[in-house]
């Protein structure tokens, strides 16, 4: 409105932007990637719905590999230090991010958490995302590898129902495989459905109750660390 006479004429200006709304996150993710490379740290982002066994798989992985590969963990949850306490009990440095309601970790949260852990010596950093199979997929954290997990009790149709999470992943882990006899869950079919959506996916069928099933996963991580 014109200040002098109160008329309705408005002075406006249109600004063309063509800018990604998530550009800020992308920018920080890129910086994270450079930072991780400089520090010689490989970063693995774990994504799944709540209760798929991310923390349990981490506990088993730490137990098996911590003497060989120095590790650290960033835990993401809405509330509580519970997961961090479980990881701490296994003797590796851990930092808990409590998002206080946010449904995903973003690149800035991971950046800050990394600085909190930096004084420790580690080469492999696991980021356990907030339990959610949808939102974390949209946020690049600067990770080297993205792992999506589905546990047997969640049902066999997750790749078809949540394709976006699978398209953006590098690895697919079916967890709680010891429960296969009790569910209509054909791991071969589920892996086929997932690799149809994303032919690049490396698949694993795992159970922390059947230690021998974890060997291919451990071998994969060791190989990953060799490549740097």
């Amino acid at each position, binding site marked *: 409105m014109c200040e002098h006479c109160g008329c309705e004429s408005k002075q406006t200006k249109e600004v063309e932007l063509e800018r990604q*709304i998530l550009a800020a996150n992308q920018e920080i993710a890129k910086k994270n990637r450079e930072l991780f490379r400089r520090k010689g740290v490989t970063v693995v982002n774990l994504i799944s719905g709540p209760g798929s066994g991310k923390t349990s798989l981490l506990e088993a992985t730490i137990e098996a590999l911590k003497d060989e590969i120095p590790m650290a963990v960033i835990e993401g949850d809405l509330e509580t230090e519970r997961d961090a306490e479980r990881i701490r009990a296994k003797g590796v440095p851990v930092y808990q991010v409590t998002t206080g309601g946010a449904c995903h970790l973003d690149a800035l949260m991971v950046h800050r958490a990394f600085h909190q852990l930096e004084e420790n010596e580690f080469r492999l950093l696991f980021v356990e995302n907030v339990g959610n199979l949808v939102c974390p997929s949209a946020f690049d954290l600067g990770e080297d590898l993205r792992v999506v997990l589905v546990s047997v009790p969640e049902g066999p149709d997750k790749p078809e129902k949540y394709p976006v999470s699978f398209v953006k992943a590098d690895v697919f882990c079916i967890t709680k495989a010891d429960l296969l006899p009790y569910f209509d869950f054909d791991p071969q079919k589920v892996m086929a459905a997932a690799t149809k959506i994303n*032919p690049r996916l490396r698949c694993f069928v795992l159970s922390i109750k059947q230690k021998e099933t974890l060997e291919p996963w451990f071998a994969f991580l060791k190989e990953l660390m060799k490549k740097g």
Partner: protein
Amino acid sequence: MHEASLVLAMCEEIVRLAKQEGAKGVSSITVRIGELSGVEKEAFRFAFEVYQKGDPLFEKAELRIETVPAKSRCRHCWKETLSSPFGPCPFCGQWGLELVSGEELDLVRVEFVL
């Protein structure tokens, strides 16, 4: 999904621009949302309406949403299609469609009141 935090990120960016332009208000915002961006248009609009009530800069702003369909290209026959990128190629029947567009979440244009 997380429409509220996306609206917040968008509005923070617009506040920064408004300061730069010396604007008194925002009259319109145009965003482009891809079908597969995971963003629910109505939830985005709702989150914006809530934000709007708390910030006088946005009081009179109109939110315009452009939708981008999911388009993919076959890795085998290179044809482009608008059918589901998570299914087989409708032309050659093989699996392996690659998304070309539909993941956008862009702030396209802002109209300021000076």
